[in-house]
């Protein structure tokens, strides 16, 4: 099967002033794949996502989306930020429907579909609640529905669950996998600093070196069967083997970033 890359980075280098965030990044995410990116803090993971989103233009090199060079905002992608970007003066469904409204979907239809999505992510009773009235987990659900409702081909996720407690986090990860499985062929680029999370969710784990001038150290294919049980998978011997293997590499990078005092 000839696999088109949904997202492709070719020799991408990004500098901010005198600081080189990433250097010669080269990798692609196959269409329909779930790709995790791990690396120590300050390794330019967010820069990578912002490039894929088209929020910043690559200084050098090229970012392509389904074979076409990206310029301007990536219209094929949704972006789930580390802190949710919800509008505080809009209710849960008011926030979920934003993408539809921006695309010119008529108000009544947008509201109806937004309500469906609220129910789908377990917010049925909170459709009219404002973000300030919602817990961190529920806000993530709103953000998740907000990014999925527009049916994007690519989902960019920047440590979306890092601020949640362990149990809420496990549930959200499971729901993310369920959503992804039920949608056909969405590509997910999931940035995290948590290696366990990266392996448990992804088809492929990309390891970045510590910054500045991060590059791709290695890529690992995760051949664990799907659907995955996120609780039991952590006791799977193959999971452990993979974890050990990747960690031995990631560890060096983490130590290097410690050495720089981060």
């Amino acid at each position, binding site marked *: 099967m000839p696999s088109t890359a949904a997202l492709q980075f070719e020799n991408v280098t990004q500098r901010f002033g005198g600081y080189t965030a990433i250097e010669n990044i080269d990798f692609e995410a196959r269409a329909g794949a779930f790709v995790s990116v791990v690396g120590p803090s300050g390794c330019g993971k967010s820069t990578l996502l912002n490039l894929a989103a088209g929020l910043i233009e690559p200084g050098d090199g090229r970012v392509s989306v389904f074979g076409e060079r990206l310029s301007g*905002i990536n219209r094929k*992608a949704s972006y789930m930020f580390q802190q*949710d970007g919800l509008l505080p*003066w809009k209710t849960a469904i008011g926030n979920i429907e*934003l993408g539809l409204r921006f695309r010119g979907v008529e108000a009544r239809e947008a509201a109806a579909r937004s309500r469906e999505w609220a129910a789908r992510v377990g917010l049925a009773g909170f459709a009219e609640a404002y*973000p*300030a*009235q919602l817990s961190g987990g529920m806000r993530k659900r709103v953000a998740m529905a*907000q990014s999925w409702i527009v049916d994007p081909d690519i989902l960019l996720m920047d440590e979306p669950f890092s601020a949640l407690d362990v149990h809420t986090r496990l549930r959200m990860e499971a729901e993310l996998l369920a959503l992804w499985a039920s949608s056909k062929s969405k590509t997910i680029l999931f940035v995290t600093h948590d290696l366990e999370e990266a392996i448990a969710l992804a088809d492929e784990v990309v390891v970045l070196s510590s910054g500045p001038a991060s590059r791709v150290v290695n890529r690992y294919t995760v051949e664990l069967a799907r659907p995955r049980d996120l609780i039991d998978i952590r006791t799977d011997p193959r999971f452990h083997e993979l974890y050990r293997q990747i960690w031995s590499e990631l560890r060096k990078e983490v130590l290097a970033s410690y050495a720089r005092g981060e």
Partner: protein
Amino acid sequence: MPAANKSANKLMPGNFMVIWQILLGVAFLGAWQALVDAGKLDKFFFSRPSDIAARVVQWLRTGFIWPHLAVTLEEAALAFVLGASAGVALGFGLARAPRLGALLDPYIKVMNALPRVVLAPIFLLWFGLGIWSKVALGVTVVFFIVFFNTHRGVRDVDPVVVNNARMLGASEWQLARHVLFPSALTWVFSSLNISIGFAMIAVVVGEYLGAARGVGYLISQAEGTFDTTGVFAGMAVLSAAVLLVGWGVGRLERWLLRWKV
């Protein structure tokens, strides 16, 4: 709210506090009345609470006060609406065109530094003795409050919120309408009470300095005839009106910002 109640309860149970507050007021007015009656305070300069109350009641009963109060409120409302509209428009525009904003910045600061009272005579010349000279004075006060708040509201929008809206497909116009404008309005709403209070002050000052109607005019007329009772009665009516408007604005503000919880 429960927490606030608890700490108030620690100081004094709520109902008792109200009783003490009323007692304090009664004691003050009583002392005033007694001192004037005993001849310790000159009635000519200080009038008497009972006389002032009688005057206010008379104004209300004859309906004499209403047209004056209506004029003052009308001027304040016009000043607020015009000043706030201009403030939102310019604050928004300059925040979106930072270069122009930087160019105009020193001039805006200079104009804001000017004590507004000195503008009253020139506005009287330009706009005459009618309501518009007072409205103009009120506008100069409201405009700057709203302008600075709008400016800040637009610039302080969380970049994540802006990027999120962009990624969801917002055009520049949609971004302004759904994200930046509401964000600026939240700042304007939270300064509603201040702007409307200042608008009232400005128009009363304007009336005081030259007018044919309004509560400020009443006070200046009473003063001109050494009618201290009239001056105090005018002040009482004005305070009551400002309190009532403030209460209404507070309710409106809470409703507009209900999402803040």
